């Protein structure tokens, strides 16, 4: 019984830690991995709360698909959060 309590508290603390990490981290790729970790812990918590269908959906959509579309966006734009402060010369100004 005490192991059940320890497991639940470990998962809840891991979820809060991953949320703080994904907001504070400057490298956007690591932050996206943090959101994937949140979804993974959340699906295990859904399984412990007796909701197995929601856990399956969260594991498929939250961990895989959301991470993939975030990574596609980072590949098409910038990777670091600080890069948004340096305005690059646009195409119309260069010509």
């Amino acid at each position, binding site marked *: *019984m005490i192991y*059940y*309590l320890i497991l*639940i*508290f470990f998962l*809840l603390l891991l*979820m*809060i830690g991953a*949320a*703080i990490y*994904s*907001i504070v981290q400057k490298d*956007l790729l690591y*932050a*996206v991995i943090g*959101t994937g970790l*949140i*979804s993974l812990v*959340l699906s295990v*918590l*859904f399984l412990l*709360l*007796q*909701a*197995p*269908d*929601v856990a399956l*959906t*969260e594991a498929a*959509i*939250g961990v895989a*698909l*959301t991470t993939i*579309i*975030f990574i*596609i*966006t*980072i590949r*098409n*734009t*910038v990777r670091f*959060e600080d*890069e*948004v*402060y340096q*305005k*690059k*010369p*646009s*195409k119309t100004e260069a010509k």
Partner: protein
Amino acid sequence: MNFTLFDLKIIEYSFFITAILVIMIGLYGALVKKSLIKVVIGLSVFDSGINLLLISVGYITSGTAPIFSPALVKDMPLTLENIKKLSAGMVDPVPQALVLTAIVIGFGVTAVALSLVIRLYRHHQTLNIDEIKNLKW
């Protein structure tokens, strides 16, 4: 598993406190950060917190999953009294159905927001929301 009442209250309230903390962290990220991708990450964290809060509201202690499996029914005939007696020990299925819909809708909202972010980056060559001022597309 036999829990005392104190343990059960601790488990229940720790789920609520964690969900509200995650909602607050996501709201901070969506409101304060300058990068547009960080704003969308904050919205995603906010979504996860709301899903956890709704599921933990519908949970009853030592309940089973809301599925009438053959191992649960055994040889009982499914009359109305037996169904009422069996479903008294199940968790609430209504928040689970709501959250199942909300997960898919959250994915759609994230996809639309990220496509708008890519369009803004191609037009302005930046993602800082302080530099994107002009409303002309």
